[in-house]
């Protein structure tokens, strides 16, 4: 065989080689450390405890109980006549029964204070896909979305990577508990304009990740007014809506629209998923709920790239339309999350650490700024490294969430047993004691 002459290797696209996936940031680096040395109560008690993953594991038993008692959900009924239709079903409208069940579930979560039309629900394989899909639809490459900080690190990838859309942050700070203000929104809009970027929408997460707090009604109204004024879209990612500690504190943008008689609602789109509230991220179930017909039509067609397995739709349709199950689940899940939250907040308090007052989510927003050498991002990352490598806890530094104030950290508490949480709190106590002694 002739000697092969070195030829230039075949090229890849800009998308493929770009760093926008963000997997080199500390947010993901911590995960690597965990993967290499994961905590295990018996076999590896000194390993890294994963507190950077917002996953809900507190209510698995409820799901298991349901599945055990309702085998028709995971099978297709006696004689499986439904199986054929199910296995062939790849219609991007999604199973009507599943959309109905999702609409009902979303209504239940909001205490019946908002209504959802199953025909406005578009199904996607996860909220990650839902957010990306909406971005494709609402903005062109080079356009911008405004997102309040601090925000979920995954947005940098989900909203920007393949879409070519930019994020312009709306800066929030602790002076008012990181709430969005009209001034901050205006400033962000002007900033985008000065960079010659066309702003196409504002994307909020309510309840907020990483803050772990719901957005107040007045603020929601201000955000909606701002969007209306600028004639842009409003995407409300309500993925944690079922993980609020009390049912009355969460106000959905749907409720605000209802009060306004759905005037100007065609700019509003809600994203939801079962990954957090139901603890089923592996199932890959997300939805877009849009009040805009064109967006619904387009999103449906685009969802061909991210359909939910019909088998999964069938299973969940059965489960979620069981009122007894869903009511009990929502209630019990809330109670358990509240319990966990109280446990971690009190534990941190006795260690001398303050957190933002939270009322939702699977995490708390912890203030370690008193521990920083200097109020800088570098100091925060240095502290983060210490916590990761010496205390062996993987928590998420505020800088990875684009927080403008250094020293804040997101700490997840629902992806582990209570015993593990105790161990984590003990380690934090130890760290704080060491620091006090040093001073």
């Amino acid at each position, binding site marked *: 065989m002739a000697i*092969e002459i070195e030829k230039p290797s*075949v090229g*890849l*696209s800009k*998308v*493929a080689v770009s760093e926008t996936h963000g997997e080199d940031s500390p947010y993901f680096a911590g995960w690597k450390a965990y993967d290499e040395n994961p905590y295990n109560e018996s076999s590896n008690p000194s390993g890294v405890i994963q507190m950077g*993953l917002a996953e809900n*594991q507190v209510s*698995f038993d409820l799901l*298991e109980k349901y599945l*055990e008692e309702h*085998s028709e959900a995971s*099978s*297709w009924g006696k004689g499986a006549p439904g*199986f*054929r239709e*199910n*296995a*062939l*079903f790849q*219609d991007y*409208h999604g199973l009507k029964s599943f959309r109905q069940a999702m609409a009902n579930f979303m209504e239940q979560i909001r205490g019946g204070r908002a209504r*959802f*039309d199953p*025909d*406005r629900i578009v199904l996607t*394989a*996860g909220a*990650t*896909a839902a957010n990306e899909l909406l971005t*494709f*639809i*609402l903005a062109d490459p080079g*356009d911008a979305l405004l997102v309040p900080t601090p925000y979920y690190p995954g947005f940098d990838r989900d909203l920007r990577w*393949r879409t070519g859309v930019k994020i312009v942050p709306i800066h929030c700070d602790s002076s008012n508990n990181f709430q969005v203000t009209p001034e901050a929104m205006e400033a962000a809009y002007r900033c985008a304009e000065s960079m010659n970027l066309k702003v196409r929408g504002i994307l909020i997460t309510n309840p907020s990740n990483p803050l772990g707090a719901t957005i107040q009604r007045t603020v929601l109204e201000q955000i909606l007014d701002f969007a209306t004024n600028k004639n842009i879209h409003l995407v409300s990612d309500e993925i944690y809506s079922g993980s609020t500690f009390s049912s009355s504190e969460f106000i959905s943008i749907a409720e605000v629209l*209802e009060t306004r008689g*759905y005037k100007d*609602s*065609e700019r509003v789109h809600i994203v939801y998923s079962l990954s957090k509230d139901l603890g089923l*991220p*592996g*199932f*890959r*179930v997300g939805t877009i709920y*849009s*009040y*805009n*017909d*064109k967006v*619904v*039509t*387009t999103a449906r*067609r*685009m969802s061909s*790239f*991210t359909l*939910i*397995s019909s*088998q*999964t739709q069938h299973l969940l349709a059965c489960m979620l339309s069981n009122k007894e199950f869903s009511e009990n689940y929502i209630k019990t899940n809330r109670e358990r999350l509240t319990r966990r939250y109280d446990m971690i907040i009190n534990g941190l308090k006795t260690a001398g650490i303050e957190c933002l007052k939270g009322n939702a989510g699977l995490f708390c927003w912890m203030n370690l700024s008193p521990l920083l050498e200097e109020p800088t991002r570098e100091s925060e990352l240095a502290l983060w490294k210490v916590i990761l490598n010496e205390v062996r806890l993987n928590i998420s530094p505020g800088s990875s969430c684009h927080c403008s104030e250094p020293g804040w950290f997101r700490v997840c508490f629902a992806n582990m047993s209570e015993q593990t949480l105790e161990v984590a709190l003990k380690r934090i106590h130890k760290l704080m004691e060491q620091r006090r002694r040093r001073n």
Partner: protein
Amino acid sequence: MRLIVPLQSVVQGRGGLIFGSLIPCALFYFLQLYLKRHRSHNPQSSPPSPTLSSPKLAELTRTSSRSNLFSRGSNGQVRISSRAISIAKPNDSPYYIGLEKASEDPFDRFGNPDGVIQLGLSENRLCFDLIEKWILENLKDSMMGSDDGDLNINGIATYQPFDGTLELKLAMAGFMSHIMGGAVSFEPSQMVLTAGATPAIETLCFCLADQGNAFLVPTPYYPGFDRDVKFRTGVELIPVHCRSTDNFTLSITALDQAFNQTRKHGTKIRGILLSNPANPVGNLLSREMLHAILDFAREKNIHIISDEIFAGSIYGDEEFVSMAEVLDSEGFDKDRVHIVYGLSKDLSLPGFRVGVIYSFNENVLAAARKLTRFSSVSAPTQRILVSMLSDTRFIEEYIKTTKRRVRNMYDLFVAGLKKLNIRCADSSAGLYCWADMSKLISSYSEKGELELWDKLLNVGKINVTPGSACHCIEPGWFRCCFTTIVEEDIPVVMERIQKAVKSTTILSNSS
């Protein structure tokens, strides 16, 4: 603003007159712009209602008046992206129109004997009984895990690797190898699983090409490629026409011509998109042809995407050779080859959404893996499939039976068409045949073809896919899928074809 054009064209070529005419043109332009902007700001006096001008928007059923209150949305004045605007347009492709008509009024031998017979969807429904039986006997254990009867939702509820579990990759690797006659083995570490072959194709396009680049694709091709490749990536498809004289086999000369033409126009070609077995023709690429394509790709330094989704649907005697097999024997330069597969055709499970990207390029795999977060396979589905695919006895029986049944339907269907003097292209794979109805069309043109398609759909009440929807350069060819019906339906189909052909009316609602 369209008024401007004729004015400008009048003044072109007359240098002195240009300046004298440009200024009024410019003023006119600005006047129109002013008017347009102000028109869109007029507040609407009545509540917005959904526009029903497009048939697709009429899909949204409003069942109760109560629901109108909270579901009242509108197109409104807020802008959507240019990408979205083109996607929102009503579907004017016969491929999609036919599919819709068939699903609205589906034929049922007993329940709806006058309904539309679906021959436009390449799905295999001949072997469901086998899968159903397996599911009934094995589902509970396989779904929930059989740890002494303890339900184990933990394993499937939590975050899984986005590109698929190792168990499923192993099972898929084994299945793919089996399907392809054991001639090649697949490495799980080179596999990325996606929610169907549709996102597999799109993901590869995102990885291999930038917006504005292009892929060469032999015609006729699967209509879905226009969506999968172009919708969101901004990548173009350049057709490489194949002709009936070669039984629609790809020629390197045609590839070369298309490549050079496109380059002259300033568009960069990043790769070739092949379907092997071919859809809609159903023929196979020979070993020699695969080598030739590989050489061509090497020479131009471009990628090859080989969509082998019908690899397990071989009914003829010809041997299927995967691109992977050819690469094995070559031993080098595998970086440019990427294979797409899925379970929608061979295992009749399109609803479960399972697709595969198989690549020899580590960089492509790394990027594709990260992109699967947008289209992962659902965990409970992964679990069932691991069980099913690992049941080798079942899989063997299934593959054997499918082959036999598909072959049987193919023989009967093609014979039926032959009796009507309709011949089919030579094919040995797929779930369809490629029928030449050019003698039955009134004019040898796309118009004539679409007139026949319309008659077949609206008079004959059968949905077949016209060649123009597949970008075929010769009019009169139609793809007929025969695995969505049963033997008894074949005479009915033939009768209806005759009825449609004989009818002379052209319906007014033909699009």
